[in-house]
């Protein structure tokens, strides 16, 4: 089955083309059927591939010739490794459910077909990225993923915020992409290939066709450049600002972006290209630090946000920080494990939030929610499962993977990172249960009309929720003592032995669970029993801290004033220079010619004899000069 891996991305592509041909007048049912079936087929093939890889180990890449450049050949192809196989299954599983969910969520939208076109293209791009055997192909699909997120975030194009968010998402990630672009260009120049295998070999032998930098420094440089790409895509600090804004898109899109496709790409790339990073201690440190900063930073912002999707979005940023930090401390398996479990419970949280939003007619502010448990029990239960998984309460999925990461951080000897991880875990538990309590418990705070119309979503929406909830419950067991750490063995079967399973520290699970429970407890006290008044805290001594968190540490503002405005002003100044100096000189020459002509025209006095005289004098001078120069007639 591995040799048919190209089928996996092909199904969504075919769905995209079919929907494109069908056009806008297609029936919603038909459209959903095509998209969901294609995704389902891809999922089935992925599962078959997964089982085969588990049985036989990863296969060699399949390559075909794409373009000849002088004496080089650029190839395209596909490849299945353990990591790929797992990603294929996760992506297709989540996207199938999201596709199904969207049928009801997007019902009646006049661009329903277009929405499914974009979704299919999105999934195709992500799957293509996953099975790419070389970095150029990765970059191609990487950009396509970015394009699809642009299209989907800006799907409601008539909303100015959506348009701005889409643009921001594309441009901010593109800044990261350029880092990646430079990185793979340098790698190609140095190694003559884009293929992972060739690149890894060259990195191992430190044999580069580049003389302006030492091999060690070169590896560090390239690793950091590739990581910059991941920073952009996976919304790491300092390029995280696009992800929360991307909430302007329809909620199923958010689920897809956050769980399976867009943001996972960054972590996936670092994991896939890990041998490059492993060769540079400096690069790993940078990654770990960035990951740690992101984890705590986003968690702190998440504490005070009032938009239900925004909180979940910041939790994604924070969780991605965890994964990146894990890679930075060489806890390769832990990171990939968390990527997988996170995909399930984050998709669950988003879809559940979407269900809530759908029921409340696209109101997303948790301050005007409350008591929805009674109206929407299925959504409530599944959201609770997702929240518990995110907080890391055993035996939910998040507990196992987060535990691994904390263990990795602890084992690396970097206590600061470990502490940051714990604090972030506390914040995570607090904010997600803050949302839970404010949404599902207490009294409804919105208007009565909305309350009356609020109702549990139909089965098209709840079935994906339930399935995801089950995965959020059990997926953690894949890499636990229960299954004897099956995932770790599976991932390392391909010969990747980074971050070999660290020694277990007996107190670690208890500490992690306690910290999470403390967070939940605080949220319970503040938002359920109201024994601690959050308003008082916010307006009291903690006021400056609250503002800092509420305004997202003013990062957007800083960027606006420190980067956007200066660049725009440079543009304006250059435009001014271009108009008045560069072109001004041109026009000055023109005007000068005109003014000179105005003066010189008086030489044209109309007297033929004057003209003749001047001609003769000129001829005499020229002839004389010529005679003098050549010394006579020869």
């Amino acid at each position, binding site marked *: 089955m591995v040799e048919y891996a190209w089928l996996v991305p092909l199904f969504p592509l075919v769905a995209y083309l079919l929907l494109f041909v069908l056009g806008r007048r297609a029936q919603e049912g038909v459209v959903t059927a095509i998209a969901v079936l294609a995704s389902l087929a891809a999922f089935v093939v992925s599962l078959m591939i997964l089982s085969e890889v588990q049985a036989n180990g990863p296969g060699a890449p399949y390559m075909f010739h794409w373009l000849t450049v002088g004496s080089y050949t650029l190839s395209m192809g596909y490849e299945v490794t353990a990591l790929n196989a797992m990603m294929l299954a996760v992506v297709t599983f989540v996207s199938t459910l999201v596709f199904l969910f969207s049928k009801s969520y997007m019902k009646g939208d006049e661009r329903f077909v277009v929405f499914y076109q974009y979704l299919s293209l999105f999934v195709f791009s992500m799957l293509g990225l996953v099975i790419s055997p070389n970095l150029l192909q990765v970059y191609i699909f990487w950009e396509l993923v970015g394009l699809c997120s642009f299209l989907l975030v800006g799907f409601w194009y008539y909303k100015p915020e959506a348009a701005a968010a889409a643009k921001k998402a594309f441009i901010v990630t593109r800044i990261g992409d350029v880092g990646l672009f430079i990185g793979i260009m340098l790698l190609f120049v140095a190694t003559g290939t884009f293929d992972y295998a060739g690149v890894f070999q060259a990195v191992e032998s430190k044999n580069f066709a580049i003389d302006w930098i030492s091999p060690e420094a070169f590896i560090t440089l390239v690793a950091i450049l590739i990581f910059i790409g991941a920073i952009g895509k996976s919304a790491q600090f300092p390029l995280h600002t696009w992800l929360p804004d991307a909430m302007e898109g329809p909620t199923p899109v958010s689920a897809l972006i956050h769980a399976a496709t867009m943001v996972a790409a960054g972590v996936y790339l670092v994991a896939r290209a890990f041998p490059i990073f492993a060769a540079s201690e400096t690069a790993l440190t940078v990654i770990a630090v960035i990951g740690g900063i992101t984890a705590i930073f986003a968690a702190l912002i998440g504490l005070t946000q009032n938009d239900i999707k925004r909180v979940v979005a910041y939790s994604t940023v924070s969780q991605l920080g965890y994964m990146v930090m894990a890679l930075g401390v060489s806890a390769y398996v832990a990171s990939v494990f968390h990527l997988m479990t996170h995909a399930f419970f984050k998709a669950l949280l988003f879809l559940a939030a979407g269900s809530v939003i759908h029921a409340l007619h696209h109101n997303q502010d948790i301050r005007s929610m409350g008591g929805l448990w009674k109206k929407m029990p299925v959504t409530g239960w599944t959201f609770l499962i997702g929240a518990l998984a995110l907080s890391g309460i055993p035996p939910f999925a998040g507990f196992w993977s987060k535990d691994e990461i904390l263990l990795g951080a602890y084992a690396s000897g970097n206590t600061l990172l470990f502490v940051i991880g714990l604090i972030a875990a506390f914040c995570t538990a607090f904010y997600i249960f803050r949302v839970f309590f404010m949404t599902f418990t207490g009294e409804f705070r919105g208007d009565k009309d909305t309350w009356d119309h609020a109702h549990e979503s139909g089965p098209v929406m709840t079935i994906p929720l339930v399935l995801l909830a089950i995965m959020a419950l059990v997926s953690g067991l894949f890499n636990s003592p229960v299954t004897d750490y099956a995932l770790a063995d599976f991932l390392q079967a391909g010969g990747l032995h980074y971050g070999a399973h660290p020694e277990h520290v007996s107190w670690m699970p208890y500490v992690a669970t306690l910290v999470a429970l403390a967070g939940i407890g605080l949220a319970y006290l503040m938002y359920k029993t109201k024994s601690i008044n959050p308003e008082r805290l916010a307006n009291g001594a903690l006021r400056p801290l609250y503002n800092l968190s509420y305004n997202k540490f003013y990062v957007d503002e800083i960027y606006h004033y420190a980067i956007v405005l200066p660049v725009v002003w440079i543009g304006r100044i250059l435009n001014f220079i271009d108009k008045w100096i560069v072109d001004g000189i041109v026009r000055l020459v023109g005007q000068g010619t005109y003014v000179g002509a105005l003066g010189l025209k008086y030489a044209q006095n109309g*007297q033929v004899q004057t003209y003749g*005289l001047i001609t003769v004098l000129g001829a005499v001078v020229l002839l004389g000069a010529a005679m003098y120069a050549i010394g006579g007639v020869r």
Partner: protein
Amino acid sequence: MLSVEQFLTLAAILFCIGLYGALTKRNIIIVLVSIELMLNAANINLLTFARFGLVPAINGQVFTLFAMTIAAAELAVGLAILIALYRNRNTSDVRDQDLMKW
């Protein structure tokens, strides 16, 4: 014995006289006449080389014939223009004919 230089010298002097006249005289008729003088000087040169040149040939004489024909045509048209001008502007002074100034 006659030499090439003698004829060339004569032609040059004649040409310069014509040139001076064409540049200074105010009556258009005299200017035209001066131009004929220059043409005649050129003709002398042509004939000189036809007779005494490195390769004596009758071509020089044919060329002179053409030159004279064209000169006659030119003079005829020139005088016709002069008449028309005189009729319109009542002057035959070159310096009054400055319609083409700026």
